[in-house]
Structure formats: structure tokens, C-alpha cells
């Protein structure tokens, strides 16, 4: 599949469905080590993105991502709002002027987005945050692209790495975000943001495979 305007819209639409379907699950994960709002936040944000784009979607993939970012920043709140908002803002910039994304462009999109999350949140690997799903995904995608993988292939690798990273948050003690207040009691729980980040990568892979 060629990654252009429709693929980006498809991804965002898939995210709306994915976060609606995983609303309770994400909120439950957040209840265990946080404040029980992550699922609601993500669902509210991507429902709003969908509504905004349904009303009027820009003609350019980059502009679509930018308008999604702006909606997320205005509707998600909490930690996730600025972090995912920044992800899509930077991803939008990485797409600027492109009508179709090559495998390298897809890697660049994620790289820009993930760097934005890092700059905004200043989390390190192992802090038990969404970074623990995102950074391994990026590394895997980069490696696959370097091997000449197509988009479906590099996304598959990204998904597998994100999933491992997400599961890898379970034994960690949180050092960033709300879960860090629990100290050692955060150990043994999967990070909600790492889970939503895994879903973000997985939805792209699923949408862009067709």
C-alpha cells in the first residue's frame, strides 16, 4: 500500500476504533498505578480527531497529522495530551510536502514523533513510560528499513518490538509520571502509556498492510 493521504486518514480512524475498544483496559491499567483516566483520555482525543477530520480533512497528509495533533492537544489533557500531541506535530513536520511516504519516510515520521515525545517528557528508557514501547519500535523499524524491508515489513518489526517493550515495563519501577509516586509498588504492573503507544504502532501496521 502506498502511504499517502488516505493511509494517514485510515491510521487515525483505526486509532479511534482501537482506543474506543481499549478504553476500559487502558483505564484499568492506569487505575493500578495512576489515576484511572488514560483510556478515557485517549478515547476522547481520537474521537475528537475523527470528528474534526470528518468535518473537514486537509488535502495534505502532513496537514492532516498537524490538525490531529492540535485536536489532541486541545482534548486529551493529562500527560498523554502533550506527549501524543507533540508526537503528531513532529510527525506532521516530517511529512511536510510529501504526497507519498517511502519506507524511509515512514521511519522518519516515527523518528520525529518519538524524538518529540522524548524532548517533551524527558523520559529515559527504563523509566516505565510510553518511551519503553516507542524507542524499541523505532530501532526495529530503522533496522528493517536498513535491511530494505517494505513498509509492511518494517511496521511488523516495529509492532513486535513495541509489544516487547510494553511487556518489558511490567517488572520496572516507574521513575517518570504519576506511577513514580508509588515507588516500588509500581513494579508488576504494565504501563498504560506504553500500552497505548504499542496500540499506536500496531494500528499503523494493520492499516498500512492492506
Amino acid at each position, binding site marked *: 500500500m502506498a502511504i499517502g493521504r488516505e493511509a494517514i486518514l485510515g491510521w487515525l480512524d483505526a486509532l479511534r476504533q482501537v482506543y474506543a475498544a481499549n478504553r476500559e483496559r487502558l*483505564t*484499568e491499567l492506569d*487505575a*493500578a*498505578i*495512576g*489515576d*484511572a*483516566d488514560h*483510556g*478515557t*483520555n485517549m478515547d*476522547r482525543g481520537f474521537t475528537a480527531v475523527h470528528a474534526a477530520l470528518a468535518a473537514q480533512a486537509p488535502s495534505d497528509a502532513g496537514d492532516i497529522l498537524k490538525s490531529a495533533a492540535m485536536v489532541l*492537544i*486541545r*482534548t*486529551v*489533557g*493529562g*500527560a*498523554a*495530551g*502533550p*506527549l501524543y500531541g507533540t508526537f503528531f506535530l513532529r510527525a506532521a513536520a516530517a511529512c511536510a510536502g510529501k504526497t507519498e511516504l517511502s519506507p524511509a519516510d515512514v521511519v522518519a515520521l516515527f523518528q520525529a514523533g518519538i524524538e518529540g515525545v522524548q524532548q*517533551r*517528557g524527558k523520559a529515559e528508557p527504563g523509566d516505565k513510560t510510553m518511551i519503553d514501547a516507542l524507542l524499541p519500535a523505532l530501532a526495529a523499524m530503522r533496522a528493517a528499513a536498513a535491511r530494505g524491508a517494505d513498509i509492511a515489513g518494517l511496521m511488523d518489526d516495529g509492532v513486535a518490538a513495541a509489544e516487547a517493550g510494553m511487556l518489558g515495563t511490567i517488572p520496572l*519501577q516507574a*521513575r*517518570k*509520571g*504519576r506511577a*513514580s*509516586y*508509588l*515507588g516500588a*509498588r509500581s513494579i508488576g504492573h504494565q504501563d498504560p502509556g506504553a500500552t497505548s503507544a504499542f496500540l499506536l504502532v500496531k494500528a499503523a501496521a494493520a492499516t498500512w498492510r492492506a
Partner: protein
Amino acid sequence: MKKLINDPANARREFLAGLALAHADLLAVIQDPVYVVRAGAPVQGKTGVISGGGSGHEPMHAGFVGRGMLDAACPGEVFTSPTPDQIEAATLAVDGGAGVLHIVKNYTGDIMNFEMAAELCQARGVEVRAVVINDDVAVEDSLYTAGRRGVGTTVLAEKICGAAAERGYGLARVAELGERVNRHGRSMGVALTSCTVPAAGRPNFVIGADEIEMGIGIHGEPGRERSALLPAAEVTARMAEAILADLPFTSGDRVIAIVNGMGGTPLMELYLVYAELERILRARGITVARRLVGNYITSLEMAGCSLTLLKADDEMLSMWDDPVVTAGLRWGA
């Protein structure tokens, strides 16, 4: 889940509609983006003071909007930091040309959203300073945490900075005072029950009939440690000792004290805890110069309480005594 609401998705909007109707003399509610603003804002030449955070902590912050305290509050969804557009709009609405102070509780989400808003405001030519409140001694302020949470000292900072701004202090002086309040304020909380976030529909945590959570925050997150249910005297002593040792507070200090209910605690119990607290402080030679006993920074319907002590200097006490006219705190007028 049993709540007097209609649809969780509308609870914030409907609550604010009621607030606006009940206190039309004090404030107005703007719904898009959502903020609560003092009647008559902006006051020309006055430093603006605003705060914000998730809903569910009422009366903080929306109940502290009015003369002598906040010019505006930005209520997020329940337990969810407000978004930058709310904060930006509130800041612009209260700027009387002298700049605006943001009183921000130290949570990752609050910090990031207020920072993004501050950038937007500065780009619009409005001077913004932030005071970050991080007073919760239950959390270590270390590389291994997101720093200490902001809890009860926020109420004190809002009152004291609000009074200073009302008196005509410039932004830098109001911010300096807010930082001084934060440096001298310490808090700790305990939960007897969990609360239920409306949109989540079930309690944040499960807790046994003979257990309590020591060192909770205000978002229904579990505390640092689960303990057996203890008598009020023992619970109060443990919290007070953690707080006193931290600053540390010493003999001769004068404090403003808050015994704060988390939302589901009878006032009888809060006064009983206050008696325990004052006994402990007196024994150490610490004088309670001013105090609040009641629900000021809540966690929905959670049962439990938090203690806050501020080592107060003359300026803080004088600001504390200034008139305040808000839904949640009112005296001198």
C-alpha cells in the same frame, strides 16, 4: 458506580453550569475552551493569578475564583490536567497588562500543559511566570520520581498570592511570594477508601475493611504504603511527624495548618484530627497561627484526610488575613 451525575462525559460541563448559576456574583464560566473567570476580569494593572488542574478536587480550584484569590481557574476533565488552550484563554482573559502567575501543581501532565500554554501566551505578548507546588512529603524528590506532588500547599499559595496581587504586587513579587510559600509548605495524606472516577466507573483501588493507604495523593492513586487501620491519634502522629521532620519545623515556628477532608470524611472526624494535630504541635513549641478544617482539596468522594503545614512569616500571615470572597473561602467581606 453511584453518583449524582447524568453522563460522565458531560459531568464537567454540567457541574460548571451549576457553579456559574450559583455564583454569578463572583465568577463566570466559559465553556469553550473551558475556564472559570472572576467577575469583572481583567482588573487593569493587577497581576493576574490563575491555577488549574483536573476536576474532582473541588472547591479547589474553581471554588477559589474571586476577589482576593484566583482570577481564573482551568478545570480539566476529572483528574486530568487541563489543556493548553484552556490555560491560554484564561491567561489572556485575566491579563490586566501586568502579567499573569500560573500556580501549577507538580504533575507531569500539569507541568507540560501549563508550559505549552505559557509559550502560547508569551508569543501573544503576555508575560507569564509559573510557581510549581511540590509539597507532598510522601513522595521522594529524587531522580526516581517525577518529584513531589503538589497538594495542600496549593490552597495556601492561591490565597496568599491572590492577596498580594490584589494589593498591587507586581508579577515578580507575587511569584517570589508563591515560591516562598511552596518552600515552606509540606503536606501528607491518608485514604480510608478509594474514589471512583466517573468515566472509569469503578473504584481506583480495592482496600480491605481494616486497611488504610498512607501517603496518598489527590487522584485516587494508591499511596506509598498500606497500613493496618489505626486510631486517629496514631494516623495524625505519623503524618505530622513525616511533615515536621521534612522541612524541618522547629520550636518557635508559627504555622498555618490545614486539616483537609478528601471529600467523604465527616467534619466531626476532621475536627478530631485537628485536636490531635494541635496537641502534637504544641508539644513541640510550634504555634498554629491560622488554620482551616474542612474540605478544600478533595479527591471526589474518597474518605481520608491530609495535613498541610506552612511555616509562615509576617508577610504570609498578613496576606492570609486579607479579605477573600470566593465560593470556597470567604472572610473579611
